[in-house]
């Protein structure tokens, strides 16, 4: 064997190095791909990338095994004429034929009733394009996975502070001293979080994790506070109460930057009860939250306009205006609201001792108050006050799905936003920091269509498929107040469902409620498995037929790179490329990868040619868009406007001459402009030269306090990031919610909820956060089903994507149900035993694993490791299907019938966020005679034509020879 000192890796073959962007999860780290003789030798983090700074995760480093996976689809496929849907029997067809089928079918739909075409996408990173396509087609039935992911987190915080976590903003761990993470194991933004977390700990920061389970990040927390799932709201409200009672809040911050001191009309008899008292003042049209409200001046003992120079308003008290209107500062209302939310009250609900809750509040309050940061950065606020410094209180938070995936998540998250505001930590050093284009107005400007008339044949949708309702008149409902969208988003059932309700799309389409559709196009979403609740039933719906023998969902197109469970149910399969084979734009129009210091967007540039006949889904959309002559894709003469997706990215403008396109960097003819500017034909080249990323660093004085930073807001408006430069006042008190409540109470003209929903809307559209038990817990006998069941994402896998990955699946080959040993003792089973987990909606047989790192009232498992036999390129004997299981079978997508309706979604009543984590279960030992495999099992899913299954039992990957040796074709 050659001595390693004499060995040179570069001599082993022809070496090329290319930069692109990872897509093994949604982080979008910069990667450097080394090729040897055209085959992938090595994928490493790009040290010059602002997001990951050279690091990479387990998934990112396993990209090779995704690229050469036997689960890859490589041919367009059509369900065989004699095969039933779900049997996974396909014939290969050409792309031409596939396009003809789609052109004919979709063309017909568009000419008659565009809403009969529905497009739902999974964890894609091209919502700018898929959304544009839907709008151009004219269908409102478009959404991505956000509704069943974390829309509560987005909506709850954006409706409160104008930004949220992950892509929208995050904790400033560089300067924080105390970091509180609620309900996150491993999650979005994972590499940057890991990088920052370790630096934070090494700097001596204190890290508290509040989570029913101690895994992932929580493992290295200085303190783990186990909490019962779904009770975070109670904890946060109790902390808020303690902070207010101790006077541990940043008064100055609240007064200036939130609506805490603004006067709310307090007379239940009046039609405008609960709204801010507004005075006549010229306001910019379209601005939802103009500066025409009042404070109560302590010296004058009278109402004055907000931000009147020299005025120090009251935060507490009740007052009477000159015209006799009784008013209270909204902070007074908040104080009244939390009065009964004592730590002792929260102890019973959360399982956290009252003393701990108090201590947590004190740690937060005292750290925020006593360890103030002051940076020598000059800035000017929206009221023209010059500040010599930027101040910050070093308490930072992070939270994601743990808070969000409950039916009470919206209000828990609103409470978290308020807590962060009380501590004075919004867009300040050491606290929460926004990422461009956030902060945005509360709520942001884009609005959904307003009624059935906005959907017309051969016409683009009038309105955005997804938007941000600011009052009831923004709802997308018909005259009866019922939904126009298939998933019933933006209806009175889930008024602020800003990301749609993809989790109900199939059930609704199957039932024909609100109407039947014709064609459902699913892009990289595994709706026949881990992306659906009630999976077994959804699989039946997909193959269910009406009395004429026609499928209830007549035509199903699935675009995916891999043989997922959903592929088996397709009528038409479109093979997508992997991330290493295509162009992508992580666009400012979608969710860019901005940093705290300024906007950042990035691209993917292919490093290897597509395998087989794989075609990027973007190319598919542009081709269909051109064939159907959707206005954005053709010129006035109806001729195809864009050669391909890279051409589209360069030349598309949101409207002719708008200067806004998919990429923000190197715009203008010579690449001299950014954010806004004419198309630059050499834009791709410039991205390629710059590590595939564009990063604009704001001047220091624009980097903080952006909700109220005059310089920044004017800059943002000048660069077309926002429409207004109005200050974005934190909504401690949400007038938006109150408007919906007033409508439900019949006190407001305009759109009215159907009778069945009045009580529901009135209850949940509370302008101040409140704690309520989850909907599921209220409808289920919690004595019979005493446990909460959760799923978490393991760090080495992303959703369902990685069981086909030969390296990653060795780490998680199947999943266990993790239970506290106490639970096993009580219920008579041991570590490793087969058990049944049963909810009111179904039951699953699996294996139990004892763990002391879980709160005894909770059981949990890793998400989406269980697979259907034969899917994802695995043999039917693979552990994933025989020992792995899916918790989704236990979770219903609909609530049992209640006053609000027969088929209400199992979702947050405000946002439509799928309430995955509300499910209640019991666990008991499986019979000794039962088979030792998981239940339920499904008929084996055969491989499809074009899949290159690996022969032989051994796989020895060595770049440069592997493809030839294993017979993988290009």
């Amino acid at each position, binding site marked *: 064997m050659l001595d390693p000192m004499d060995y040179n890796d570069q001599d082993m073959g022809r070496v090329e190095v290319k930069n692109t962007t990872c897509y093994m999860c949604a982080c979008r780290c910069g990667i450097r791909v080394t090729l040897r003789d055209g085959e992938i030798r090595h994928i490493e983090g790009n040290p010059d990338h602002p997001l990951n700074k050279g690091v990479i995760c387990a998934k990112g480093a396993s990209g090779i095994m995704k690229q050469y996976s036997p689960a890859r689809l490589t041919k367009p496929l059509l369900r065989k004429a004699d095969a039933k849907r779900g049997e996974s029997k396909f014939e290969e067809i050409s792309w031409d034929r596939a396009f003809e089928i789609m052109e004919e079918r979709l063309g017909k739909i568009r000419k008659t009733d565009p809403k009969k075409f529905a497009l739902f996408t999974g964890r894609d990173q091209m919502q700018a394009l898929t959304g544009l396509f839907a709008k151009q087609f004219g269908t409102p039935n478009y959404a991505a996975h956000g509704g069943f992911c974390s829309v509560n987190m987005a909506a709850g915080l954006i409706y409160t502070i104008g930004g949220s976590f992950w892509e929208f903003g995050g904790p400033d761990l560089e300067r924080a001293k105390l970091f509180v993470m609620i309900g996150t194991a491993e999650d979005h933004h994972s590499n940057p979080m890991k990088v920052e977390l370790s630096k934070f700990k090494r700097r001596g920061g204190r890290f508290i994790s509040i989570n029913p389970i101690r895994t992932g990040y929580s493992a290295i927390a200085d303190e783990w506070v186990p909490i019962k799932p779904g009770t975070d709201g109670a904890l946060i409200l109790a902390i808020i109460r303690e902070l207010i009672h101790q006077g541990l809040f940043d008064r100055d911050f609240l007064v200036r930057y939130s609506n805490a001191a603004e006067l709310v009309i307090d007379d239940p008899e009046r039609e405008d009860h609960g709204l801010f008292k507004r005075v006549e003042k010229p306001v910019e049209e379209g601005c939802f939250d103009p500066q025409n409200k009042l404070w109560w001046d302590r010296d004058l003992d009278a109402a004055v306009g907000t931000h009147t120079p020299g005025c120090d308003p009251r935060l507490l008290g009740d007052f009477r205006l000159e015209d006799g209107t009784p008013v209270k500062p909204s902070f007074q209302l908040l104080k009244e609201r939390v009065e009964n939310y004592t730590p002792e009250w929260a102890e019973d609900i959360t399982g956290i001792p009252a003393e701990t809750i108090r201590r947590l509040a004190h740690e937060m309050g005292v750290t925020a108050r006593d360890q103030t940061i002051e940076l020598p950065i000059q800035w000017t606020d929206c009221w023209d006050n010059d500040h010599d410094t930027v101040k910050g209180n070093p308490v930072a938070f992070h939270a994601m799905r743990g808070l969000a995936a409950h039916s009470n998540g919206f209000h828990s998250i609103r409470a978290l936003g308020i807590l962060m505001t009380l501590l004075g930590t919004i867009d300040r050093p050491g606290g929460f920091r926004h990422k461009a284009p956030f902060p945005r107005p509360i709520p942001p400007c884009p609005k959904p269509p307003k009624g059935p008339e906005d959907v017309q044949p051969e016409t683009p949708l009038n309105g955005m498929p997804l938007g941000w309702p600011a009052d009831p008149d923004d709802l997308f409902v018909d005259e009866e107040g019922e939904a126009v969208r298939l998933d019933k988003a933006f209806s009175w059932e889930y008024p602020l469902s800003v990301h749609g309700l993809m989790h109900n799309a199939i059930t609704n389409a199957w039932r024909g409620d609100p109407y039947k559709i014709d064609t459902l196009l699913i892009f990289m979403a595994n709706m026949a498995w881990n992306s659906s609740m009630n999976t077994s039933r959804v699989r039946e719906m997909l193959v269910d037929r009406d009395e004429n023998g026609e499928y209830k969902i007549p035509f199903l197109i699935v675009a995916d790179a891999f043989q997922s469970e959903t592929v088996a149910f397709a009528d038409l399969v479109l093979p997508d490329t992997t991330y290493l084979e295509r162009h992508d734009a992580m666009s400012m129009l979608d969710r860019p990868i901005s940093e705290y210091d300024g906007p950042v967007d990035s691209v993917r540039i292919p490093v290897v040619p597509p395998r087989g006949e794989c075609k990027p889904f973007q190319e598919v959309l542009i081709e269909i868009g051109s064939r159907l002559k959707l206005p954005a894709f053709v010129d006035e003469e109806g001729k195809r406007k864009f050669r391909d997706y890279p051409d589209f990215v360069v030349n598309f403008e949101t409207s002719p001459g708008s200067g806004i396109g998919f990429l923000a960097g190197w715009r203008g003819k010579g690449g001299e402009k950014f954010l806004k500017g004419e198309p630059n034909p050499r834009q791709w080249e410039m991205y390629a030269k710059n590590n595939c990323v564009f990063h604009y660093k704001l001047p220091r004085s624009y980097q903080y306090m952006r909700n109220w930073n005059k310089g920044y807001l004017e800059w943002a408006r000048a660069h077309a990031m926002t429409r207004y430069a109005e200050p974005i006042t934190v909504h401690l008190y949400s007038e938006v919610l109150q408007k919906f409540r007033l409508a439900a109470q019949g006190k407001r003209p305009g759109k009215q909820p159907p009778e069945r929903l009045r009580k529901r809307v009135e209850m949940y559209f509370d302008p101040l956060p409140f704690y309520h038990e989850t909907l599921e817990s209220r409808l289920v006998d919690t004595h019979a089903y005493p446990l909460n069941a959760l799923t978490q994402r393991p760090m080495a896998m992303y959703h369902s994507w990685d069981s086909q990955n030969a390296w990653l699946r*060795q*780490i*998680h*080959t*199947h999943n*266990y149900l*993790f239970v506290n040993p106490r639970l096993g003792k009580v219920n008579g089973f041991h570590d490793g035993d087969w058990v049944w987990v049963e909810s009111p909606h179904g039951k699953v047989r699996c294996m139990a*694993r*004892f*763990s*002391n*790192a879980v709160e005894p009232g909770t059981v949990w498992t890793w998400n989406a490791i269980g697979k259907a036999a034969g899917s994802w390129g695995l043999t039917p004997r693979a*552990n994933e299907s025989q020992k792995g299981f899916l918790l989704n079978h236990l979770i219903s997508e609909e609530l049992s019938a209640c006053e609000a309706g027969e088929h209400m979604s199992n979702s947050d009543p405000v946002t439509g966020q799928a309430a995955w984590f509300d499910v209640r279960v019991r666990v008991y030992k499986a019979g000794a005679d039962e088979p030792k495999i998981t239940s339920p099992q499904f008929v084996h899913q055969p491989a499809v034509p074009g899949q290159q299954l690996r022969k032989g039992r051994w796989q020895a990957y060595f770049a440069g020879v592997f493809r030839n040796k294993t017979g993988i074709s290009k």
Partner: protein
Amino acid sequence: MHPAFSVIFLTTLIGAGQGLFLALVTGQLYSLANLLQPQDSLSFYATGSFLSLLFLVVGLLASFFHLGHPERAWRSAARWRTSWLSREVIVLPLFMLLVAAYAAVHYSGLTGSLFVLQDVIEVDASLLLGILGAVAAFALYICTAMIYAGIKFIEEWHSPLTVINFTLFGLASGFMLAAAFSAWKGVDLVGFYSSWAVVFTVMAAVSRSLSLRRNSHLVHKSTLQTAIGIRHKGIVQNTQGFMGGSFNTREFFHGASENTLRLVYWFFLGMVFVLPVLLLGASYWLASPYLPVAAFAVQYLGLMAERWYFFAEARHPQNLYYQSMA
């Protein structure tokens, strides 16, 4: 440890082969001292040492199955300064060579006296080879046993008892084989070899009991606490980091149930120590040539079980790292 059958065959077969050779040499020495009738060179010593050689060759062949690359086995003589395995690899063929020479000398009748020691002992080539072979046989016992006893981390093995056991088991089975061989040949040495076989079996029973007792009371130096460096009584592994098994889970765990283990334990105690002695005892009265053969067969089977148990009872400290998957 996972019992490797190639190694079980190797150690038991060559152990018996060495023992048989030692028995032959013992017989020769006794006859030299006129304590026993001299035996025929060809039919007894040559055939007997061929039989010994057969055991050694089969054992050696079995050992090749243990190697990933048997074609490179020759390389393994390189590190005799540090590696007991390397030493075994040298001593085993050397011993085989001596046995072969011993057999050849007897076979070809080259047993003419070379010189006479102290006017009494007639020294011939076979005696010299026999004595050299005996030294090599003992050296081989030590080398073989030290492969196991020399690994200090495997505390069940790391004891002089391992060397003593290997030697005594080899002697017992070898003399048992000699008794069987004598009975089969109709040679009047059955009683002689049987007696020694019983003596060695009893000694082995004592020393193996001591090692079993030692192992059952063994407090391992390594614990989960030292393995990961965390001081706490309640450490439990949640996951070993993979789920489909690895070399570490295949090589170092026997994978058998407690019941199997107990079964093997009693099986080998009965088969190695009790039954052969009873059978030999019976052969005194019944004088059947089959009984010593049966005694050897039984003991050999028992020794395979013993060697299996020898592996299974050894708890490698690396196992601390491989307790659970999730």
